[in-house]
């Protein structure tokens, strides 16, 4: 501990320590992961099967169940991550946050660590939904590169929405207001995206919103990485760039706002 100047390696260690705390909590209480899996299960089993029979949505040559599976993975990533800010409010109330903020770790390392922690939660969702999709006969890609890509985008998408959630938590500060805002945001985010229907089907005003919605880029990438014979509409490079830039901006904002949550 003789050095005053910190290296990137030190920062990485601090970031991973914050993420490690989240992973250890999950290990102590894995039930949460199972209960989280129920909602996507219902979407895939009920909504997916019924809509598949309707043939109401043009899905570019794949079955609706195929089309839906990546959308539901993205949905579940967002729905978990968007309430992540609640844990920051809880940590503020319990005094844990003050201690993190007094530690030598820079604010951004704390924010990225939290985002990674949320990503790990989402990875477990990805595994559950992937297995479920196999059982439902979705035509999945099994090449290692595609699976690694899937995991990377799941982590990235989760980090984006968890950090967004942290920004909201810093602004609204109380859990009651946060719950209100969180619920207000989830459905519009979901419906103004390509998760359950293609953007091409939307009225032009909604399509314009969908193009601004990071969830659209996440779904686009997940669909290309999960489904056999599906081409990315926006390009995987674009998806990666958009999500990375949005994440960088959100981390910068959250790192600046983090201390104000203490009030």
């Amino acid at each position, binding site marked *: *501990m*003789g*050095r*005053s100047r*910190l290296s990137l390696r*030190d920062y990485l*260690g*601090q970031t*991973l*320590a*914050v993420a*490690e*705390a989240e992973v*250890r*909590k999950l290990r*102590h*209480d894995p039930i949460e992961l199972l209960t989280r899996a129920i909602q996507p299960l219902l979407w895939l089993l009920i909504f997916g099967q019924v809509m598949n029979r309707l043939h109401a949505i043009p899905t570019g040559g794949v079955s609706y169940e195929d089309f839906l599976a990546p959308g539901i993975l993205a949905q579940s990533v967002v729905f978990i991550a968007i309430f992540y800010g609640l844990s920051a409010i809880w940590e503020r*109330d*319990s*005094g*844990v946050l*003050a*201690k*993190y*903020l*007094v*530690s*030598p*770790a*820079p604010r951004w390392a704390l924010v990225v660590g939290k985002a990674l922690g949320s990503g790990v939660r989402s990875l477990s969702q990805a595994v559950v939904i992937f297995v479920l999709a196999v059982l439902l006969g979705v035509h999945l890609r099994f090449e290692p590169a595609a699976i690694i890509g899937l995991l990377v985008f799941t982590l990235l998408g989760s980090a984006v929405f968890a950090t967004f959630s942290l920004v909201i938590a810093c602004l609204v500060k109380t859990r009651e207001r946060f719950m209100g805002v969180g619920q207000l945001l989830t459905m519009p985010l979901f419906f103004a995206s390509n998760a359950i229907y293609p953007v091409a089907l939307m009225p032009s005003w909604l399509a314009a919103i969908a193009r601004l919605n990071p969830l659209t880029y996440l779904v686009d990438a997940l669909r290309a990485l999960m489904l056999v014979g599906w081409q990315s509409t926006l390009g995987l490079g674009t998806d990666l760039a958009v999500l990375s830039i949005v994440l960088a901006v959100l981390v910068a904002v959250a790192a600046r706002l983090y*201390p104000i949550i*203490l009030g």
Partner: protein
Amino acid sequence: MLGDAVTPVQFVVQTRGLTRSFGALTAVDHIDLQVATGSIFGLLGPNGAGKTTIIRMLTTLLPPSAGEAWVAGFDVLHQAAQVRQHIGYVPQMLSADPDLSGYENLLIFAKLYRVPASLRRVRIKEALAFMGIAEAAHALVRHYSGGMIRRLEIAQSLVNRPEVLFLDEPTMGLDPAARHAVWGHVQSLWRQWGTTIFMTTHYMEEAEALCQTVAFIHQGRIVKTGSPAALKAEAGEGATLDDVFIQLTGESGEEGGSFSEASRTRQAARRHG
């Protein structure tokens, strides 16, 4: 946690005209403090006097509205990162993570404070044993008593080895036995490591038991500084520190305080179980 360029300073905490306002309210009003390196210093005053606000400024959580403060030789406003590298902080609320074990709490913070991997395990084990919570090391903190959580939080400073340890109302809400146990551990920590301890309290017997120097704060201003013995002698024959407190603040110490202070006290008490 000493940096290589740091030379020992005579006063590990110094403030000059330190001030903090919240809107029209001046919570801390032009405070000048000097805390000798290696001492146990107590900031005493009724609830709402400004004690926690001072600690939050010294620990870089809150920027001062005016004035200056140095901790371990670093400016709290412009060298916040260096300050944080050299301090330990135990907030008023019980701040250990209840969803992790005691060991894990120490491990995560050891990593945040960059305690070298080769030292971590040994130091954590030693710290847990020193604080008398080795047996509960792998139980989740949610099953700890309030006194055990406090000891765990203080144990953290044995792992990180800060120059200054800030304790904000360290025994608030603890029962007498747990309070005395915490005092004993603070004293032995100070004896063994020579860590400077900067604490706030509104319990006068706590200040007498631990502090070599105390400063009384009332309505955001320091009204008296000195050793407990000298202040008592000054207050008259047979005077207790409680008498000094009442003379200086006009309060019994059990009343007063803002709504948020009171609700924080209750919240802490609830978590102490």
